[in-house]
């Protein structure tokens, strides 16, 4: 049933420097044979391009001086994955972290397995492969030592970067064993002896700091924006202000007259659905970034706005709200929700509508890519979440084979989903192709470019209807969501959310309600809609979690207790029992919906916040919770709202159960950051459109949380840490419960219900 990966030939090579490496030759001596059963459904990592690779020869090399080099095959955008995955390898192989160096892999999913850091999948999909790679390396070192001493391998043990013969006390360091170890056969999966949890040195121990921490503090870390090459030129692009717009005419004379400007290059508009294609426009190439920006200002361009030229987000809000009031496509249907609603007394019916606007990712490093084309090959240096997609885009654009495109992955100055789309890398390839052979081109997006031309988080109207009887029992629940779909990126005119979107906190809700119906409305996209950290969980959880608080209030019950009663006793639910659904690609057996774990985080967050305590006038506590990316989160926000309606967030308590906690310190960092990002979108962030154009342009009008508005107290509560459970995601799950918890807290503080984001001031 599962995909098996057979490494048919294992090789190693001795480098010319004399350091022995456990590595595979570049000539493809290793072939990966996938013996997949075509009839079986693939789950998790097996369903991802590239799957997983656990070959120690791919990930580990040991130099004669004992330095262990571990490949980080996934890009670092701030989650700590470039540290945490190599740390797992080091732990299993008993390498001392202070003798480990981490190198970043280039794009090559055939070699490394899937490299796309979106979907909170890194630890979920690569914990076990990395453990296996580390364990295999350890066992090869032990086998080498046993052979050297002519003793049974059962008599030796790898301990802290050396192998010890236990009875004689003889020791050999990893460097001394590297050559022999490399000649050992790689143990098969069934022969691997993975460490017991009690033997972990680094996993779960907070002993390892970010590999780039010191360089970051000194300004020495290299992000995509920091790439420099001899002879490099710089480009910025004037893009159509409306998605789907095209150049009507342009005049580059004045731009070319700007000192430092070298060339003007037309970028073709995308054909068909936008996908990861450039928007089109005109690139200005110059000796430095500033000259390119000045040159762009001097361009004279007339645009044809195309079919989205009338997009107005205020009007569209009405369209969405109307759509959310009409019957949509049913995607979950238990019982007979409509009859119960129609038959209920007016006093038992309750409906509420919620709205979340478009959001921009606004990573601190705007998109940027450097491309050099030389002798039939292209080399790329960039900050991308999905290096293989960047390689494919450049290869396709330049009509090269993927193996003739090398994508070097530099640090990302934030990503949040934006940088999984390599349109900016494609742009750089187009410009580099227009320059003299070998000229490296760094293509930079300004902040205005980033805000104007993002793959935005969708805009959404959500309507919920419930029948709640006099005793406070919820008899029916209808959730209707109207939001443009990410599917519109890939299929022109696609309308209505796809299953993967609906399955984020709309379909998969575990409440004990006899009649449940979930619908999506058919609404078109007029902007590029993309993944934003936690994706459709944001609007769905905002609406559903506010609605539960409203129902609790109507029932005259404590929100926490009402929610726990609604969830019911601890049990494991097969997501497929709710509806034909999507389980973040994971197997329902491996990742059932566990209401006990959901209860656990609710209780932990409430305990941390001292739920139920007396509060001063104008203060309030609000609760919300969410299951997303196979992890359970709950948040309690404490606010103070003054007479003018100014909201101040005093504290956030966030609890998470992500199963095994591999690098708890970084998990807490993600929770803190998720709290801040969740508050940003709740309090101040909004993208609006007029005449098809994004009205905001920079951080003065696209506002994100700053120090002074950030809560001084963010308490994180890690729950469970069960290493027998498969890992859950960490990067995205902290975000969804924050906005509803905030709005529920505002209601507790003021009696005013905020159903539309951003909150701004409370009227």
């Amino acid at each position: 049933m599962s995909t098996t990966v057979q490494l048919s030939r294992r090789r190693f090579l001795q480098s010319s420097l004399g350091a022995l490496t456990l590595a595979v030759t570049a000539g493809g001596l290793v072939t990966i044979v996938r013996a997949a059963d075509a009839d079986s459904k693939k789950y998790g990592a097996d369903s991802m391009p590239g799957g997983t690779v656990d070959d120690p020869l791919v990930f580990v090399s040991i130099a004669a001086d004992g330095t262990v080099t571990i490949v980080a095959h996934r890009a670092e955008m701030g989650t700590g994955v470039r540290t945490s995955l190599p740390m797992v390898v080091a732990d299993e192989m008993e390498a001392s972290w202070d003798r480990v160096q981490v190198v970043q892999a280039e794009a090559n999913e055939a070699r490394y397995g899937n490299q796309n850091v979106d979907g909170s999948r890194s630890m979920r999909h690569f914990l076990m492969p990395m453990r296996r790679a580390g364990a295999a390396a350890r066992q090869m070192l032990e086998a080498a030592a046993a052979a050297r001493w002519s003793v049974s391998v059962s008599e030796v043990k790898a301990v802290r970067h050396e192998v010890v013969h236990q009875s004689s006390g003889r020791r050999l360091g990893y460097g001394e064993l590297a050559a022999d170890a490399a000649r050992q056969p790689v143990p098969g999966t069934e022969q691997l002896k993975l460490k017991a949890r009690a033997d972990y040195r680094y996993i779960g121990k907070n002993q390892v700091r970010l590999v780039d921490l010191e360089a970051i503090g000194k300004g020495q870390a290299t992000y995509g924006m920091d790439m420099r090459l001899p002879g490099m030129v710089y480009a910025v692009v004037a893009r159509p202000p409306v998605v789907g717009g095209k150049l009507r005419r342009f005049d580059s004379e004045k731009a070319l007259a700007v000192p430092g400007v070298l060339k003007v290059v037309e970028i073709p508009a995308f054909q068909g659905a936008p996908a990861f294609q450039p928007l089109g426009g005109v690139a200005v190439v110059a000796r430095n970034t500033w000259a390119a920006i000045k040159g762009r200002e001097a361009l004279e361009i007339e645009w044809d706005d195309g079919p989205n030229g009338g997009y107005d987000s205020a009007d569209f809000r009405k369209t969405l709200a109307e759509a959310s009031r009409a019957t949509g496509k049913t995607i979950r249907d238990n019982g007979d929700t409509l009859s119960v609603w129609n038959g209920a007394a007016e006093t038992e019916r309750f409906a509420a509508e919620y709205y979340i606007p478009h959001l921009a990712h606004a990573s601190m490093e705007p998109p940027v890519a450097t491309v050099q084309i030389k002798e039939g090959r292209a080399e790329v240096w960039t900050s991308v979440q999905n290096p293989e997609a960047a390689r494919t885009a450049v290869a396709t654009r330049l009509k090269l084979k993927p193996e003739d495109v090398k994508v070097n992955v530099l640090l990302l100055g934030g990503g949040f989903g934006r940088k999984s789309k390599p349109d900016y890398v494609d742009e750089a390839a187009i410009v580099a192709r227009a320059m003299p052979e070998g000229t490296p081109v760094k293509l930079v997006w300004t902040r205005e470019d980033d805000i104007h031309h993002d793959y935005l988080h969708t805009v959404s109207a959500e309507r919920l209807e419930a029948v709640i009887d006099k005793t406070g029992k919820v008899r029916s629940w209808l959730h209707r969501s109207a939001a443009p779909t990410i599917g519109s990126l890939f299929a022109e005119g696609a309308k209505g959310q796809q299953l993967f979107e609906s399955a984020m906190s709309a379909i998969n809700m575990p409440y004990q309600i006899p009649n449940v119906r979930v619908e999506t409305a058919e609404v078109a996209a007029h902007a590029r809609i993309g993944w934003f950290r936690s994706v459709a969980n944001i609007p769905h959880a905002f609406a559903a979690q506010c609605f539960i608080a409203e129902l609790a209030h109507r029932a005259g019950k404590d929100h926490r207790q009402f929610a726990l009663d609604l969830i019911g006793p601890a049990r494991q639910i097969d997501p497929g029992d709710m509806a034909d659904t999507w389980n973040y690609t994971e197997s329902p057996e491996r990742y059932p919906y566990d209401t006990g774990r959901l209860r656990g985080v609710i209780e932990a967050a409430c305990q941390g916040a001292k739920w139920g305590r007396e509060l001063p006038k104008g203060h309030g506590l609000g609760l919300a919770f969410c299951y997303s990316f196979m992890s359970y989160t709950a948040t309690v926000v404490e606010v103070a709202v003054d007479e003018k309606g100014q909201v101040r967030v005093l504290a956030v308590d966030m609890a998470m159960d992500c199963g095994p906690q591999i690098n708890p310190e970084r998990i807490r960092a993600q929770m803190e950051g998720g709290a801040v990002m969740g508050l940003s979108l709740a309090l101040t962030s909004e993208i609006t459109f007029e005449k098809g154009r994004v009205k905001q342009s920079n951080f003065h009008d696209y506002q994100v949380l700053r120090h002074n508005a950030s809560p001084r107290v963010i308490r994180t509560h890690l729950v469970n840490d069960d290493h027998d459970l498969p890992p859950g995601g960490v990067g995205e799950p902290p975000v969804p419960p924050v906005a509803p918890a905030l709005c529920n807290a505002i209601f507790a503080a003021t009696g005013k219900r905020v159903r539309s984001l951003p909150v701004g001031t409370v009227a």
Partner: protein
Amino acid sequence: MPQLNVNGQTREVDVPDDMPLLWVLRDELGMTGSKFGCGMALCGACTMHLDGAPVRSCVTPVSAAAGRAISTIEGMASDRVGQVVQDAWIENNVAQCGYCQAGQIMTAVGLLKTTPAPTEEQIDGAMGGNICRCGTYPRIRAAILQAADRLAQGDE
């Protein structure tokens, strides 16, 4: 042709007077520690010191920096306050993506040089111009308070 004094070294550049200091350092001098985030003095990622005071180099014309002492993140390891702040950043594991942190550190160093024992409000006031999209604010605050303590102990 402006002559610049960057971290105690004299550097010659051939750029227009209105070119922002940030781009002069990043593109012409190859000093990429200071980051581009907004180009409008809105995010603080580009923060440097001119004669010891924090400025947003993305809107500071190079002509305004000529003849003055420019300090950047690359020079902080040899600055007494800078070193203490950098250490506090490491001890508190502040960074996530890290892109904004050079600017955060430069602003924090500027704050501690004028206000060695900042209150919470003073931290808010000084740091309000530096955005971190990853949301490291609580740890930045902790690192600043720790650095202030260290510096106070060192002065005793």
